[in-house]
């Protein structure tokens, strides 16, 4: 039977006269020199918004150029520079840091019940490193740009390219330092700053996802640093490693590069898994189905992600036996991703679902990620990959994961935790509209890529046969919708900061420590240090289905001593 307990006011709720982290200190110095993880999260948010616009400008240039089969907006070289700009900025300066440095920075200490991250000053340093790296990259792009594509393949990047490869490489190395510092900070926080009673299997899945991401960041990023150093040494100092005309091996570059860059895919998508788990459980009023397996799936993905890099090299001429092994392992890593999709679906099953904006983003994510994942299996099959390698099929696949997946989850997470971050509510109708528009805009932009890719449209070409034009026009038109769907939230979220209704401490009736403190939280997160005696999700009693007549959590989690 369902025992209905009214929501108990959280013991940490403080009167609103007490300053929040936003009002505790004033002045520009109190922001730029802050060690408060919540303020640093907002600093990152500002920086990432700027980079999202820069990377987006590259996308606009590409879609504009591809509207017609002929080259009419950009020169061939200009086109190469634009897709390189789009790729480098979006990957290293938006997707890799996006969820971890903003939502992760803000939420991890709150979720584990800590006052701050383990190394607050390192956290600020990593922001400055990121900004400095971004400035170097922007200088490289403004001074003339890079034409290698985001993959910097040798020997083109080391010998023939005319772009600012050295500066771009340096910028990416610096961004990598920032990434490593962030990862170390999260790992130390989750290991050593959990509140009393917060056992490993009481961590919210978002914290687990950030944990897995941090592991990958710390162990994969240095290999990217190493390979970029080799590129810089060869290009800048004439030290041969990759140049085949001097006995070097260009494939070695690809191995080292993808040893980072495939795990980097999981840096970009694992945090989204965490966000989606939190949203789905809250808006279906149902405890996460198979929590333990969700955790194991995250760790499985984080570890197995290191073993599949060779599937980027099926047509490179590597040994067929290596290709077979990498193909098999790529199928293996699909299993934990599928476990997650099934568990989200089972969480929805018999849930009491409401479609608030975050839930619309989450449901859209599940669909788009599933398509992205299944097309990934096609690419993991060597015969099909040989056919569609370097076509728009690949572009479609990874945009379904990166944009349909990671960016949708970022927007979903932002709309879910926005009341906690700012203490304000945004207009829900607009938000629902933006979420639905994003789903359809995304579909129109990227689904045609599967078809034209399968038909043979190569990626990175500015000029193409006329038979592909209908698909490119569809894609470019969809991109306009998608851009609108990305801009809308920037408008109404900004509006809500000034004129939005004040948010309660727990506006969604969600469970988890971050909802037990005030919105926005005080500087030290909790007025009294929290103690935990239950798991993160308790939307209904253990062993029973969700109550279909109430939406409250069934019991309060935090008990003050």
């Amino acid at each position, binding site marked *: 039977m369902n025992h209905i307990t009214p929501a108990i006011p959280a013991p940490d709720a403080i009167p609103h006269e007490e300053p929040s982290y936003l009002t505790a200190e004033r002045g520009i110095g109190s922001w730029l020199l802050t*060690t408060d993880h919540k303020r640093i999260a907002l600093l990152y948010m500002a920086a990432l918004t700027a980079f999202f616009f820069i990377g987006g400008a590259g996308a606009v240039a590409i879609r504009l150029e591809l509207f017609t089969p002929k080259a009419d907006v950009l020169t061939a070289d200009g086109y190469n520079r634009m897709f390189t700009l789009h790729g480098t900025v979006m990957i290293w300066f938006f997707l890799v840091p996006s969820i971890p440095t903003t939502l992760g920075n803000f939420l991890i*200490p709150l979720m584990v019940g*800590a*006052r*701050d*991250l*383990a*190394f*607050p000053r390192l956290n600020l340093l990593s922001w400055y490193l990121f900004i400095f790296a971004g400035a170097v990259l922007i200088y490289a792009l403004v001074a003339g740009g890079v034409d290698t594509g985001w993959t910097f393949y040798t020997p083109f990047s080391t010998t023939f390219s005319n772009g600012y490869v050295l500066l771009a490489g340096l910028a990416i190395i610096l961004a990598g330092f920032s990434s*490593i510092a962030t*990862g*170390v*900070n999260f*790992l*130390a926080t989750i*290991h*050593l*700053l959990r509140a009393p009673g917060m056992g490993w299997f009481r961590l919210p899945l978002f914290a687990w996802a950030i944990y897995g991401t941090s592991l990958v960041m*710390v*162990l*994969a*990023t*240095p*290999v990217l*640093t*190493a*390979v970029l*150093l*080799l590129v810089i*040494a*060869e290009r800048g*100092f*004439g*030290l*041969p*490693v990759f140049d085949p005309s*001097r*006995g*070097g*091996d260009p494939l*070695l570059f690809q191995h*080292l590069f993808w*040893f980072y860059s495939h795990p980097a895919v999981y840096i970009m998508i694992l945090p989204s898994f965490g966000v989606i788990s939190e949203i789905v459980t809250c808006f279906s009023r149902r405890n996460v189905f198979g929590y333990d397996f969700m955790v194991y799936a995250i760790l499985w993905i984080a570890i197995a992600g290191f073993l599949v890099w060779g599937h980027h090299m099926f047509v490179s001429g590597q040994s067929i036996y290596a290709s077979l092994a990498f193909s098999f392992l790529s199928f293996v890593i699909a299993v934990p991703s599928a476990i997650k999709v099934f568990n989200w679906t089972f969480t929805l099953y018999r849930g009491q679902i409401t479609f608030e904006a975050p839930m619309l983003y989450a449901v859209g994510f599940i669909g788009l990620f599933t398509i992205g994942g299944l097309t990934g299996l096609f690419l993991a099959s060597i015969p099909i990959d040989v056919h569609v390698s370097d076509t728009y099929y690949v572009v479609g696949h990874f945009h379904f994961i990166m944009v349909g997946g990671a960016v949708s989850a970022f927007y979903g997470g932002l709309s879910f935790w926005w009341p906690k971050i700012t203490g304000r509510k945004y207009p829900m109708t607009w938000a629902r509209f933006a979420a639905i528009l994003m789903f359809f805009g995304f579909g129109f932009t990227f689904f045609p890529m599967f078809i034209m890719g399968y038909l043979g449209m190569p990626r990175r070409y500015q000029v193409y046969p006329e038979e592909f034009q209908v698909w490119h026009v569809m894609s470019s038109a969809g991109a306009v919708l998608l851009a609108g769907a990305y801009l809308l939230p920037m408008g109404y979220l900004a509006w809500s900061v000034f004129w939005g209704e004040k948010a309660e401490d727990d506006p969604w009736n969600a469970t988890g420590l971050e909802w037990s403190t005030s919105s926005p939280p005080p500087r030290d997160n909790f007025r009294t240090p929290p103690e935990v005696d239950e798991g993160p999700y308790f939307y209904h009693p253990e062993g029973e289905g969700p109550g279909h007549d109430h939406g409250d959590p069934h019991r309060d989690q935090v008990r003050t001593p």
Partner: protein
Amino acid sequence: MSGALREPWRSLRRQREAAAFGTWIFLGGEAMLFAGLILAFAVMRALHPAGFILAGRETEVALGTANTAILLTSSLTMAVAAEAARAELRRATLWGMGLTLALGAAFLAVKGFEWSSDLEKHLFPGDGFALAEPSAQIFFALYWIMTSLHAMHMLGGMTVVAWLGWQAWRRARPLRSPAFEAAALYWHLVDIVWIVLYPLLYLGGRAP
């Protein structure tokens, strides 16, 4: 004495644990950085065994061996400094860090002589390279990359040791601060990397 305790920690023991934990994680990343380069070395050595044997005989084995001894000794003095700091023995800490800095500087000085002798012998890849075998240039490319990256790590470590030593000297940082142990861990990693580089760069190809 609560000067060593920092936000957000509630106990010094826990904070010390976190400093060591965070440093170990970071060192795991550092190990991956050098692992990438060592992998590149291994691949190239497998592709061009003859050139690598030829080139390996050209490095300055005497200076490299001397540097190995210097660096191993500096790890000893650094370990003494860290343990002394933990036990709050001020003199031993300062002596240990001072000796570590001196030995680090000695390592870099020897390295400098070695590099200049390499340059005189035309062992920098490019036109006019001393050895005819083209793949010998690849050996020396990796030699220059790995030794200079290692030297940069030495400089970074020496900066940290100098800074902590200066603070300990001025009593601006309590000796119980976990930073001493973290710095020592980093110093040992730089030492361990050298222990791997030494046989790769100086001993390969020298067997009779």
